[in-house]
């Protein structure tokens, strides 16, 4: 197994090295990457998009459609996780359509891997498979120190996310970064407080809408741009107020939608 893997890696490495060896030097100012479209963006970006952070300008304006599809990809991940069967209970009406041998393994019948200490810490090992509903961390009480610190810091971390969200047009940051931090706060709270209390942060009725809010907001802004400029996802080039408003709608939707999706994926995997 190992020698073959090494051989495969070598087979892949040689052409890749040959490929990168003949690329133009990477930090020269006259490389094509700095002289073509990129140079035009640097030259005209601020005037055309009204955004000082040109990464945000590329993300939301010049290549806004990429970002649209990108939030669709996150939503796809959520739909994927939601569509998978839950737990290890048998199918509702028998499992006839499965091929032979895919029936659930009878418990205790299969050769058990030896749960040595390292593995059961590392990947969960074989410990939880005996339990009907594996309750994560139920046997390890959360340390009061950790609980206190997480609860103390959570609002500040959330504030940081909000700051990243609203200063994304002039500093590094923006919707996706804020979404990641929001989700991290949520997951940390979920770990110390329990899933149920964390899940209560998002009202049940709102969830189906919030999950898809990023693609929906993009579609809405694309439609508004279409009405205003005649081009899908177009921004009125000389009206910076409208441009800014459209950008903010997208950033907020990305932050909220992305955060909710990431948090929901976490919750689905836990239960």
């Amino acid at each position, binding site marked *: 197994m190992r020698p073959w893997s090494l051989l495969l890696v070598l087979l892949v490495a040689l052409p890749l090295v040959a490929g990168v060896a003949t690329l133009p030097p990477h930090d*020269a100012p006259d490389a094509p990457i700095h002289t073509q479209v990129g140079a035009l*963006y640097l030259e005209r970006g601020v005037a055309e998009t009204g955004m000082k952070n040109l990464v945000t300008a590329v993300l939301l304006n010049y290549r806004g459609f990429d970002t649209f599809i990108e939030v669709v990809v996150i939503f796809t991940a959520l739909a994927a996780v939601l569509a998978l069967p839950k737990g290890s209970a048998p199918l509702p009406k028998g499992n006839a359509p499965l091929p032979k041998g895919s029936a659930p393994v009878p418990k205790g019948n299969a050769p058990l891997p030896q749960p040595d200490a390292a593995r059961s810490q590392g990947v969960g090992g074989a410990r939880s498979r005996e339990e009907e509903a594996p309750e994560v961390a139920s046997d390890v009480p959360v340390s009061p120190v950790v609980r206190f610190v997480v609860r103390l810091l959570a609002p500040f971390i959330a504030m940081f996310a909000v700051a990243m969200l609203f200063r994304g047009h002039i500093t590094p940051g923006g919707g996706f970064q804020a979404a990641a931090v929001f989700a991290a706060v949520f997951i940390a709270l979920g770990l110390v407080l329990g899933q149920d209390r964390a899940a209560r942060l998002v009202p049940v009725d709102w969830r189906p809408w919030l999950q898809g809010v990023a693609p929906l907001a993009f579609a809405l802004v694309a439609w508004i741009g279409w009405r205003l400029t005649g081009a899908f996802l177009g921004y009125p080039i000389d009206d910076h107020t409208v441009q800014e408003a459209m950008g903010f709608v997208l950033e907020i939707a990305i932050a909220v939608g992305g955060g909710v999706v990431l948090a929901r994926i976490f919750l689905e995997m836990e239960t």
Partner: protein
Amino acid sequence: MQPFGLDLDYVAVVALFCVGLYMLVAKSNLLKKLLGLNVMETSVFAFIVTAGMVEGGDPPIMVAGTSAPYASPIPHAMVLTGIVVAVSVTAVALALIVQIHAHFGTIEIDELKELP
């Protein structure tokens, strides 16, 4: 530094790619395979960002305190998109690994092969 005409930054990226590929191919543990995939993804992102940098460049944010030359903004946007895609793939892979673990009680390929 470019010994033998090789751009060492790019070579490092390819090396990282190969480390990830080796993990993905040779490791038996599904989680380690997934980590290998993530290493590969990171290497490609590093490649794109490296390519977008320019000698003595500032971040492409046009505020007081930065000046030309600026790094190209397109690679950053590409990598941001790429990271989100990678996170999504990782999430789906983890969900599948959780399923496999719940069903077979192991995530080692060697042990999965021995199951009936």
